[in-house]
């Protein structure tokens, strides 16, 4: 019995690692996920997760995937893997930041601070590069 448990456990571990992959890296991601919006007024913002982080030199997931503590942004908590729209709904709950404002603050805010990266409407909300 024991002889079977170990290979099974190893196999389960391998499967778990594969399942966890998307949370660790977003190779397939080409745009910001817009499922949280009921009506889509613009094209989703072009965003290649891994390419962006490599270019921007971002190693910490919490740089973007922050948490929340007492209604304030908690930069310590790592929320990678949890969709942004789980906390930031399209229409903001009281005391929360709406999804659109959260995305704009996150992307445009950082680009303005760093003086790098797109800051205009049309430089993010555009068709995917071919």
């Amino acid at each position, binding site marked *: 019995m024991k002889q079977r448990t170990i290979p099974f456990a190893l196999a389960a571990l391998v499967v778990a690692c594969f399942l966890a992959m998307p949370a660790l890296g977003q190779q397939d991601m080409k745009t910001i996920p817009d499922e949280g919006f009921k009506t889509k*007024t*613009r094209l989703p913002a072009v965003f290649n997760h891994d390419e962006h982080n490599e270019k921007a030199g971002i190693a910490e997931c919490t740089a973007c995937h922050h948490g929340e503590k007492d209604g304030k942004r908690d930069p310590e908590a790592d929320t990678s893997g949890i969709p942004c729209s789980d906390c930031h709904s399209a229409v903001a709950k009281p005391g929360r930041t*709406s999804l*659109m*404002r959260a995305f*704009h*603050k996150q992307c*445009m*805010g950082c680009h*303005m601070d760093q*003086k*790098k990266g*797109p*800051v*205009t*409407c*049309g*430089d993010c909300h*555009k068709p995917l590069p071919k």
Partner: protein
Amino acid sequence: MHALYDLAVGPLAWLAFGVFIIGSIYRLLAMRALALKKDGAFMTYISWPHAIKSLVHWFTPFGALGWKENPGVTIATFVFHICLFLVPIFLMGHIVLFDTFRGWSWPALPDGVADALAIVVVLICAYFLWRRLSVPEVRFLTTPQDVFVVSLVGLTFLTGVLAYHRIGDNLVLTTLHILCGEAMLAAIPFTRLSHMLFAVFSRGYIASEFGSVRFAKDW
């Protein structure tokens, strides 16, 4: 370009709004002082009822004889001024900036409608420009400054339309759009765009003289 964009959305935006608001207050007070000095007598016959009655007529399309004389110009003028305020205030892209950096939000026009109305403003600006340079009686009254301000308004909307359609470099077009808009705002108190501040008062003044002194309508 990033640095110029930062300048345009930061310090220059504050400067433009500051010049517009403080400049407007100064111009209104200075004009009041000048009117009292040169024609203080108007204080005896200035009348709100006459002024309001006349303004209602002049704010109504074809509500005044002056509007009936030239229907094309009348329609262009009304459509132009309505769009000039409606589009920038209720434009998604503008509201998003207030929403992101100030936390203020209000309903927006659908993008397609705003786009169409902005194109209408550009076309009417082109018409006004043509009219200023080609119609003899208008040309006679036109100064280089008039050509400049009409072009400035037209350029502000044109660069906005181009940026929305992602024609040309988006950062360059958007920065130009913001700079033109700021120049327009700052120009309001000090150019003929000041009719935005004075139109109501000059109409009220004329209406009062017609109503209280000549017992006549001014529309």
